[in-house]
């Protein structure tokens, strides 16, 4: 067990090192000179030389990578070219809206998806099952921003039930915070729901055909007890896995959803950085989001042992 956790931690560090190396090399491979990119289109040779000196770009690549990695590990992601402020400060400022949106999305997704998946597996071939099949196919095909605009048109512009866009911090009131975030979270969760619900259904169907389910039914357990207590608990591992893997898609969706709903989070920071060609910010966002993805999946892997006592390493 301890050995497993240690091995898993080491492999996580290895993957993150690879991510770091890749992100570092991106800037050096795709353009001859990172300084030229950072200086922008109107750069003079003198400006480029200054940036060279400032960033230590004249050192050999491995030395630069070592230097850059140490900075990143100390929380120094460089400074934004556009605003001249530290990238980490900008990222931390924009984090609360993104975390609010992600948290609400994950809650919505898990509740709706597991409900749908369990109901569909209860009566395979029934109405809910067909609905889920159709919903999942659409959920994978319709892009996040199309869903977003459709929901805005329906619930905000036509029905006037919810606000069109914007964000209110949670300390200004939970209700305004929630109402502003309902549409964005539903938008973002559609694809995630489709993903989790399909896996839940498949995993539940497998478990429901086991002998102990028939035994539980024979001894008179209620349908609810069979589905939730006996089946869902044992179908949990694949569901948890897909919740972790799906986070990657969710992170990409956050960037787009924040743009659709004008939420001032990390996603919007990224889009502004694209327009300003503010490479240090893009680099910082890549590291933060990839790190979050890798860490979440590490937690998911470690959670297996709690969920399924049969898994021993």
């Amino acid at each position, binding site marked *: 067990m301890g050995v497993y956790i240690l091995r898993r931690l080491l492999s996580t560090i290895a993957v993150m090192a690879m991510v770091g190396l890749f992100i570092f090399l991106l800037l050096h491979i795709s353009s001859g000179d990172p300084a030229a990119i950072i200086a922008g289109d109107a750069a003079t040779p003198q400006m480029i030389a200054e940036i060279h000196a400032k960033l230590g770009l004249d050192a050999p690549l491995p030395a630069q990578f070592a230097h850059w990695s140490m900075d990143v590990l100390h929380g120094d992601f460089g400074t934004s070219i556009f605003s001249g402020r530290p990238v980490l400060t900008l990222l931390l400022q924009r984090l609360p809206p993104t975390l609010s949106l992600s948290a609400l999305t994950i809650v919505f997704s898990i509740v709706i998806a597991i409900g749908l998946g369990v109901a569909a597996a209860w009566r395979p071939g029934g109405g809910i099952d067909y609905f889920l099949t159709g919903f999942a196919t659409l959920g994978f095909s319709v892009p996040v921003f199309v869903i977003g605009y459709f929901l805005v048109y329906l619930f905000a512009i036509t029905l006037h039930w919810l606000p069109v866009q914007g964000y209110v911090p949670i300390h200004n009131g939970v209700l305004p915070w929630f109402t502003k975030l309902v549409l964005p979270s539903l938008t973002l969760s559609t694809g995630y729901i489709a993903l989790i619900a399909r896996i839940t259904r498949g995993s539940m169907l497998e478990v429901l055909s086991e002998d102990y389910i028939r035994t539980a039914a024979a001894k008179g357990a209620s349908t609810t007890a069979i589905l939730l207590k006996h089946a869902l608990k044992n179908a949990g591992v694949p569901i948890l896995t897909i919740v972790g893997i799906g986070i990657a898609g969710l992170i990409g969706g956050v960037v787009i959803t924040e743009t659709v709903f004008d939420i001032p989070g990390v996603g919007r920071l990224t889009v502004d950085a694209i327009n300003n060609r503010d490479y240090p910010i893009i680099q910082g966002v*890549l590291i933060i989001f990839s790190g979050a993805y890798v860490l979440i999946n590490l937690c998911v892997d470690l959670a297996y042992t709690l969920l399924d006592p049969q898994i021993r390493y």
Partner: protein
Amino acid sequence: MMSVDIPADSALIGPNRALRRFLRRNRLILAGGVILIILIAMAISGPRWVGDPLAPDPFARLQGPSSVFWLGTDNLGRDILARTVYGARVSLVVGLASAIVTILAGLLIGLATGLGHRFDAVAMRMMDGIMAIPTILLAIALVSLTRGGVNILVVAISIPQIPGVARLVRSVILTTRERPYVEAAFCAGASVVRVLRRHILPSTIAPLMVQSAYVCANAMLIEAGLSFLGAGVPPEIPSWGNMIAESRVYLSIVPWMAFAPGICLSTMILGVTLLGDGLRKFFDPRERAGR
């Protein structure tokens, strides 16, 4: 991508009936194929029946559907229908090109890692690293580093997807390599190249065909997402992503500006995904009963 092996009994019943029988048995391929054929026909025949997608009409801005402009006009007075029809071209070209680049690169890396032990570990850890970076963010970073253009876009969309294909090819090769018939071929004196070409590569065709459909659908999604964020095709080329981005402010006045490209984009991706699902079921009959 549309050509699919017709079952062996086709010799007995003639090609036309065999095709019909094949499609009847593979409804998903039929549905996906029909959707794609309609959209491809729309993209190719577009110039014959729609107007200029770029011509602005300052006197006809933000109009609702009419007999002249079937889906209305956008904020610059451009024909929404024409722009939507032309947008199909971007989606198809970028989707197909990215699928080809991804599959070829993935196949090469997969072959190299599956056959050669030397850089297997390093290459696969590198692939793990790329896979840990969220797809659309990696594509954004790649695009923003360069000066843009459709070629760069295709590369940027392909790179995040290559690791998946490479891993698939590698796993197929690792299992095929151990098969008795491969060993037998070597014993019979066949050269490495011959074994590779005759015995190992064919086993990658079916999974790669299925995967290419999914890669293509993904590429279309990423292209639309990037164009929506302003990091995709240049704004002067009408694409579904940048049309929807421009419709932001006008959603309450001319909803078609967002809905026409949105519906087409979703239908296109649905078509490609259905084709992929259909191919998967066709190649793996066990799937038919399951999930």
